[in-house]
């Protein structure tokens, strides 16, 4: 088994303010190909900081990051950007779409940048938007969409280049239960197709799709283990009606 993503003793100390803030304090993590890892933990425990570093969006203070067997934390910013285009999909806690591009172009752009042919990029965009119930909003501008719709577009965009790993930070934070269901269905599907996923979430339904749970507390991993499934098939053991 090869790790798609690996962090070794990863540390992040923010030192911009009056006092240095240790946000991530020595994280070791290996994510296998096809694995779906949920990251949970209290607010301020370092979840966003961790996944930002893993995706090269924030620099580490010390430690190593490996992507597809290649050390990436030592890369220059431009080399990182190039690699990210091809290998990483990212959904942010606060979605950021390109405001002056249509929804369709927002989703197709990363695929085109990753070198996928225009025809394939368009097909992929169409199927992703359809899966997220956004097929009829392709020509809209992001500002014309609700927060939940924008977040779903951000997910479609992150998956457009068929990344080695999908990194997501609270991708259902702005969604109501119906929209969450669309996102859940798509995540379940791409995971089944072998997509590697690392996802920060407070949503237990989303987290329960994962194979494995990593719990952060105070910048450190305090628990790392499987989410087992009993596959009872009946409600009796889960729901207790009196």
């Amino acid at each position, binding site marked *: 088994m090869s790790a798609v993503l690996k962090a070794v003793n990863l540390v992040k100390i923010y030192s911009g303010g009056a006092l240095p803030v240790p946000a991530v304090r020595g994280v070791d993590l290996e994510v296998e190909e096809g694995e779906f890892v949920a990251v949970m933990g209290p607010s301020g425990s370092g979840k966003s900081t961790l996944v930002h570093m893993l995706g090269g969006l924030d620099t580490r203070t010390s430690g190593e990051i490996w992507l597809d067997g290649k050390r990436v934390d030592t890369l220059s910013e431009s080399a990182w950007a190039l690699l990210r285009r091809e290998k990483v999909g990212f959904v942010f806690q606060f979605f950021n779409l390109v405001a002056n591009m249509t929804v369709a172009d927002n989703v197709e752009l990363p695929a085109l940048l990753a070198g996928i042919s225009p025809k394939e990029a368009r097909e992929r965009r169409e199927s992703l938007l359809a899966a997220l119930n956004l097929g009829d909003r392709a020509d809209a501008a992001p500002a014309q969409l609700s927060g939940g719709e924008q977040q779903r577009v951000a997910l479609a965009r992150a998956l457009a280049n068929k990344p080695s790993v999908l990194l997501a930070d609270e991708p259902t934070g702005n969604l109501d239960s119906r929209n969450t269901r669309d996102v859940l269905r798509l995540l379940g599907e791409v995971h089944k197709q072998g997509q590697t996923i690392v996802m920060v979430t*407070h949503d237990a339904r989303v*987290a*329960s*799709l994962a194979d494995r749970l990593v719990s952060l507390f105070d910048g450190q991993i*305090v628990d790392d*283990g499987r989410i*087992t499934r009993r596959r009872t*098939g*009946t409600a009796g053991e889960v*729901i207790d009606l009196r």
Partner: protein
Amino acid sequence: MRPHLLALLAKEPAHGYELKQALEQTFGSAYPSPNIGQIYVTLGRLEKDGLVRSVDVEQSNRPNKKVYYLTAKGRDALTAWVEEPTEGPRVRDEFFMKLVLAPLTGIADRMALISRQRRHYLSLMADLNDLLSGTDPRDRVAGLLIEGAMLHLQADLDWLERCQEDLA
């Protein structure tokens, strides 16, 4: 199960097996399938308490069947059940007792307890997810029941995080 049977009998008289079917039909796949023996035992008790009465109905080629119907006293009991406020789901919590008391025993530390419990809740959630995706979307009663259970679990998880922040 007593008030559930009373409620079904308030609609129309029925025999034991019909009550089992009615429960299954009403609650759909989310209801732990009721045991016929338990239904008969419950009906016997209800009859003893004067809440239902039964008549033997003759059947050709088969033994008589007992058809149960609601008495006035039964209707009063049912009304009282419907109208009394229902207890919230969380009045006791065994896990919380473990969390508070375990450090005294030296058996497990709180962080480990919380982590294990969190993964257990997520396993339950995964089961509910499977259950929901295997449920006919038109079966609204079952769907709502499962969604309710999910929301309770989410609250348990949120509360677990509060315990972690304050106690661990």
